[in-house]
C-alpha cells in the first residue's frame, strides 16, 4: 500500500518536473523538424555519402574514421538544436588546424548537408536555423 502510494507520488512529481526539466527547451520544434535523434542519424548517413561523392570534400573524409565522425556530428547537431545530447568530441579548432580547409570546401560541405536535409524532408526554415548556428564555426574550421 505504502509502496504504491510512494510510486504514485513519485510519478506525479516526475510528471510535474518533466516540463520544468525541459524548460530550457526554448525551442525543440526545430529539433523535432529534424526527426530527433533517429532523423539526425539518417541525415548524417546521407551527409557522409554526399561528402564522399563530392570531389571537393572527398579528400577530407575518405581516409577518416567516418563512423566516428557521423556519431559526433549527430551529437553536435543535436546539441546545437537544443536536443537532449552533449557534444563530447574534440574542440573544432585543433581538429581542423592542419587540414588546409578553404572557404570553398566549407561552402561545399554546407551544400552537401543541405542535400541530406532535403532528402530527410527537413523544412527549409528549420534547415536555415541549423545553418545559422553552425555558420560561425567557419572561424575555427577554415584555415586558409
Amino acid at each position, binding site marked *: 500500500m505504502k509502496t504504491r502510494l510512494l510510486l504514485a507520488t513519485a510519478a506525479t512529481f516526475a510528471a510535474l518536473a518533466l516540463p520544468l526539466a525541459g524548460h530550457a527547451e526554448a525551442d525543440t520544434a526545430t529539433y523535432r523538424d529534424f526527426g530527433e535523434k533517429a532523423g539526425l542519424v539518417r541525415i548524417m548517413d546521407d551527409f557522409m555519402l554526399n561528402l564522399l561523392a563530392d570531389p571537393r570534400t572527398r579528400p577530407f573524409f575518405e581516409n577518416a574514421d567516418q563512423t566516428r565522425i557521423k556519431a559526433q556530428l549527430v551529437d553536435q547537431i543535436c546539441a546545437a538544436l537544443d536536443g537532449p545530447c552533449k557534444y563530447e568530441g574534440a574542440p573544432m579548432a585543433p581538429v581542423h588546424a592542419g587540414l588546409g580547409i578553404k*572557404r570553398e570546401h566549407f561552402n561545399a560541405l554546407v551544400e552537401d548537408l543541405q542535400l541530406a536535409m532535403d532528402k530527410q524532408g527537413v523544412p*527549409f526554415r528549420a534547415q*536555415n536555423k541549423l*545553418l545559422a548556428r553552425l*555558420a560561425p564555426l567557419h572561424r575555427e574550421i577554415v584555415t586558409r
Partner: protein
Amino acid sequence: MHGIKNLTLLLACGVALPALAASDKLLLTGGVTQLEGAAGGGLTPWAVIAGYGTRDQIGASAFYTDVRSQDYTLGTGGVAVGLWDRVELSYARQRFNTRDVGGALGLGTGFAFSQDVFGVKVRVLGDAVLEQDSWMPQIAVGMQYKRNDQGAVLRAIGARDDHGTDFYVSATKLFLDQSFLANLTLRETKANQIGILGFGGDKSDRYSTQFETSLAYLLRRDLAVGVEYRTKPDNLKIAREDNWYDVFVAYQPVKNVSVTLAYAHLGNIVIKDKQRAPYLSVQVGF
C-alpha cells in the same frame, strides 16, 4: 531584336565562362544584378561581390534586363567580374527607348538614349552570410561612372552634363535564422533617372544623398521574394522625378542561372505619369 541579340551574347558568355572561373559560393547569396550592372537586387547594389567565387577564386556574371512600361522600354545588358570575393568590376550598357514619346517630343519615334556604366565595388568588411552570431553586416563601397550618348538632347532638356559618377556605400545582412535578407545603400549622385536623362540640372546641379533598400525573404534555397525602394534626385525643371519601388521574385533553377521577375513603379518620366513596368532579368554566374 536588340534584346534577343544581347541575350544570345549572354548565353554565349555562359557557355564560355565556366572554364575560367569557379563556382563555390552558396546559392542565391551572390544576389542578382541591378539595373546599373552591380551585384545586388534589381534596383540597388548590395555589398556582395558578383559571381560565385570565394576569397580564393575569381567569379563572373553576365545579365540582361528588360523593363517595359506603358510608354518606355529600358534594355540593359552587362558583365561583371568578382576578384577574390573582394573587388567587383562591372560594365553595363543601357538603352532607353522613348517609343512614341520620342515622336511627340520631336526627337523621332523610337528615339533612344544609350548609356555605358562602368562600376567598381570593394568589400570593406564583414560577411553577410557566415557571421550569423553577429549583427555586423557586410559592407562595401562602390562607384559607377556613367556616360550618356545624347549630350545635345540632354542639355536641351536642362541637364548639365552627359556623364557623371555615383558613389555609394552598401550594407547587406542575411538573417539566416529568419530566412531573411536586408540591404541598405546610400548613394551620392547627380544622375537624372539614373543618368538616362543626364546629370545635374537647371533645378539643382549638386550631389545629393539618396537612400535605397532591398528586403528579401527566402522561400526555398532557389526562390526568394522581396521588395525594393530607391529614392532619386529631382534636378530637372522639365519634369518631376519620382522614387522607384518594386516587388520581385528571384528564382535560381540551377546554380549558374537566375531569373528575376519584378513589377516596378517608376512614377513620372518626362511627359508620362504613373509608369509601371514588368521587369525581367536573366543572369548567369560562376
